[in-house]
């Protein structure tokens, strides 16, 4: 099922498209969380769109004519792509092939592409190796930002292991996990300072926890050297 959502519209603002699957649309959508957080820490405005489908790979998205139309006609400034959670590890050739195709289409349309490095399964932290190498290659080849969400998950779990960033299936993000991912996107792709006082956090989340998550996201981004610095 395809979900197309326009969460806010303001003139003279950046329009960002989120493309992914349930990792992206869970907990109300990363685009909604990113929008709320970004709007609370900057005077700039962000228009967020989403194009998601359960279990979708980048190959599925490339073959989706609706997404093609959106990229070509949606007046979009930025797009962030999330690959199916295992593909960069078990079949990086397909991730590269269709990630490259989507990034090149973006470039042709004047859209800044970026990639969302997903997180390893809860019971398989070593999976991060393949995820990080695969997504970093995408950023390097296309000279574009990578949101190192996988790194941030590993880092936060290392300092506060009682906080569960995962849903019960050990794969999808909990609300805290989605907030962390959105925080990483805000820092790495939108270059926002989310450590300022008064930054938005999901309802029900304590201020200290929200602060810890945002600080971890910021540190994770600072420790991750953006591969686009070596772009070809």
């Amino acid at each position, binding site marked *: 099922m395809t979900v197309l959502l326009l969460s806010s519209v303001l003139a003279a603002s950046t329009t960002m498209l989120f493309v992914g699957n349930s990792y992206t649309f869970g907990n109300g959508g990363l685009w909604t969380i990113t929008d709320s957080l970004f709007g609370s820490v900057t005077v700039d405005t962000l228009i967020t769109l989403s194009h998601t489908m359960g279990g979708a790979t980048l190959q599925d998205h490339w073959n989706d004519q609706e997404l093609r139309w959106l990229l070509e006609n949606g007046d979009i400034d930025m797009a962030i792509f999330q690959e199916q*959670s295992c593909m960069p*590890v078990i*079949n990086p*050739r397909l991730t590269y092939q269709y990630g490259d195709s989507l990034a090149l289409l973006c470039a042709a349309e004047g859209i800044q592409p970026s990639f969302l490095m997903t997180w390893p399964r809860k*019971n398989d932290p070593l999976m991060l190796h*393949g995820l990080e*190498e695969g997504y970093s290659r995408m950023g390097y080849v296309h000279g574009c930002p990578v949101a190192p969400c996988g790194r941030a998950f590993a880092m936060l*779990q290392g300092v*506060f*292991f009682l906080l569960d960033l995962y849903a019960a299936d050990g794969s999808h993000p909990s609300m805290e996990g989605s907030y962390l991912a959105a925080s990483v996107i805000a820092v790495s792709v939108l270059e926002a300072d989310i450590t300022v006082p008064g930054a938005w956090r999901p309802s029900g989340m304590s201020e200290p926890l929200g602060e810890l998550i945002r600080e971890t996201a910021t540190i994770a981004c600072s420790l991750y050297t953006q591969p686009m610095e070596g772009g070809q």
Partner: protein
Amino acid sequence: MLQLLAIFALPVFLSEVSGEGEIRTIGTIQNSNGYFTVSNIRDFPGAVPDTYLSYLDNSGESTQGYYLGSQGEAMQLCSFSGKKTILVRKPLQNSVVVLQVGGAESRYPAFEDQFMGGVSMFPGMEHLLLAGNDDPSNGPVRVAVINQDMEVLSNQLFPDVQMEVVSVSLVDGETCVLGSTGLNGWERDVALFFPGSMEVLHFIPQSGRFSPVELLPLDEGCIMVCNAITGENGQIGGLFLMKLDGSLSIDWTVTLYGESWLSASAADATGEGIIVTGWTNDLPMSEVNRSDIFLAEFSLDGDLLWTTTHGGGTVDYGLDVTTCTDGGFAVSGCFADDLYNGLVLRTDSLGTLEGMGLEEQGTEQPLVSVLQNPSRCGTIGILLPEGIGTDVSVSLIDMSGRIVERTSAAGGGTAVFTGVPPGVYLVQVSNAPAMHTIKVTVTGGAL
């Protein structure tokens, strides 16, 4: 309750280290009674682990095990000055400690606020070398030297030498630190630092991202084991070995790729070659079965002798490998159930669990035998027993199933293949209806 389960009989086995929490077995060394293993056990993923030490007998049965009782992550295990020596990172104390197990009078040097960005150790004859980074974001190199009384003889930070340290060793008698430096946001080189001369060497074999893993000293020069992502395999990472000669010039390089990631995690010198372990995400994997342990042996000339993989229906990782006295290997690692369980895989000299590299599939006696296995110089000699006929077919088959050469010989005689390239072969001896198959390794053979 922690338990170890031995599945296979002597001398090869698979021992599982299972219990509550996440368990990764990070090192195994062989001793006179069997094996000593070190595992990290976490109550929850991400938690600071406790170190679990266990002893296995020669069949992989657990004979003793206990917790170290100090919250910290065991990073490496080695034998130094005849004692089991463990490098432990203690994040809560912001320190790194070198522990020796056994011996009543050992001291345990601690490095507070040092080596927190990563550390490696190397046991020399007289000194234990440590090298690493204080800062998690790489930065300056720190090198420490410990004597056999576990006294810190020197501990020096080199502020002008910036590299991500992964290993330390002695190359031609000099302390040598292996690491890498970033060339830009993605590409990385292979770097060597010699603290004695303050010399730093950078190797950029080709454009790409090099992640060194291990530095193995040789009588002259050294071999560096790396992971590499280059354009050669569509930017899908594989194994990269680089041999430096005595003057530290590149002698040879060799790469090994798969359809998906091939990731080295550790290597060891076998005396006649190099054994490498890690994991492969090669196809056909699935969302559940994402990785298998791999083992690969290379000759000192860089020839790939054989590769094997081991794994079940979930994820399996090889994290360390050590060569055993009989030429087999002990692989430490983990596999995923609900969480990781630790494992020790004791293989034969061909990386299999079949027993000493011999695979006998005959239906009738007598057995045939290989005159020398592994075979040297590209020559394989097969001794045929008496009484199996006067026209026995002997075939040399490569691992893809292709018959490389076929000959015939009489019982009591010898069949010889010469000029055989390095690799692993099956020799099939047939005097229908009986058939015998023997696995043979050729090292240093013809190219």
